């Protein structure tokens, strides 16, 4: 509790006063400061005044807190993965091949600079070119293979869809044909009935015109 900080009135116990005010003084510190208060009117006055300030401070209450909208930002790798996922396989392969070729070239260029020429590294220019060509052709072959696989898959899918559509169209066509047949049969039956009625009508009329039974 020893400190040399004096308050405006010359008392050196301002930190003790603050600890006492906020109830953070230990039991012995509290007892010591209370003894001091009996002797020091200035500290007593200040303690009361600070108590009033604390009461005043308590008039400013924050009644509500707005809800913080928090959406965890996506990691850079996730964003990259999403971006890559938007491209078809062949484009991804092409990009990878390009990147691989660039890395090889960059590595060789650095290596070349460090060894002051390719010859001293034990690799001739032709060998390096052959390595690069091989790397590029390998990547190309890989891409072509992927492309062929993708194409074959598309073809199979397309053929299956085509077959299904043909079957559907055929079934619809048969159903329509059947409906037309049924309609025609009904029409023929109706026409036959009408024909029979006409015949019988005319037969009766003939009988009436020629009551003697001679039709002509």
């Amino acid at each position, binding site marked *: 509790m020893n400190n040399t*900080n004096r308050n405006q009135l010359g008392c050196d116990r301002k930190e003790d006063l603050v600890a006492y005010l906020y109830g*953070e003084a230990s039991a012995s510190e509290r007892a010591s400061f209370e003894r001091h208060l009996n002797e020091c009117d200035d500290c007593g006055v200040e303690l009361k005044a600070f108590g009033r300030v604390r009461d005043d401070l308590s008039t400013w209450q924050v009644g509500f807190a707005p809800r913080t909208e928090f959406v965890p930002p996506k990691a850079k790798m996730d964003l990259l993965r999403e971006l890559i996922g938007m491209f078809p396989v062949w484009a991804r392969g092409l990009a990878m091949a390009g990147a691989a070729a660039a890395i090889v070239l960059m590595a060789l260029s650095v290596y070349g600079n460090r060894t002051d020429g390719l010859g001293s590294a034990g690799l001739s220019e032709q060998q390096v070119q052959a390595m690069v060509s091989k790397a590029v052709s390998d990547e190309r072959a890989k891409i072509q293979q992927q492309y062929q696989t993708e194409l074959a898959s598309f073809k199979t899918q397309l053929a299956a869809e085509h077959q299904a559509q043909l079957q559907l169209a055929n079934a619809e066509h048969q159903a329509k044909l059947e409906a037309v047949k049924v309609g025609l049969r009904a029409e023929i039956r109706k026409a036959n009935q009408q024909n029979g009625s006409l015949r019988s009508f005319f037969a009766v009329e003939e009988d009436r015109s020629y009551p003697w039974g001679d039709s002509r």
Partner: protein
Amino acid sequence: MDISDDQIIERTLAGETDAFSLLVRRWERPIYGLSLRMLGRDEDARDVCQETFLAAFRNLRKFRGDSKFSSWLYRIALNACHSRMRKRGNVVEQSIDLEDDEGRKFELADDDAELMPDRMQRDQLAFQVRKALHALPPEMRQVIVMKEYEELTFAEIADILAIPVSTVKSRLYTGLQQMRARLEKFRTAL
């Protein structure tokens, strides 16, 4: 039983990023209160709140757990407040929201104090408190806000501000003295 801050941090770091929302819900009110009392404007306090949680999320791996998560969060929020104050040149008195908690505007009446209804007197006092608090230098204001409103201990405040406990007490004492002088002037004027 409530899940602890440290457990939520572990879950977040393990990839369960949505768990961090629990920390936001738990600490948004204290952080908003601290920011509002430091800056005096609701809009600024909201922005600081958002910035604080975003910064905490992005730097969660850097949180070593030497101190409490809340202390770390308060430190981030205070840095954001100071940065905002620097940008606007610490012009606070003119920018304090003249509204109470329920959104009513303060009207500084010239009426005789005896005729003033209690509510109006209290509102005026609250406004004077805001003004007096914002007239303090930021290093004193933050100590008063953390002690008085956030109810942190001297040791916690010292940890957040990375200063000795004796400095915390000293700043608090000086801040209270200045508040006392301003508020007594207001009372005399009444």
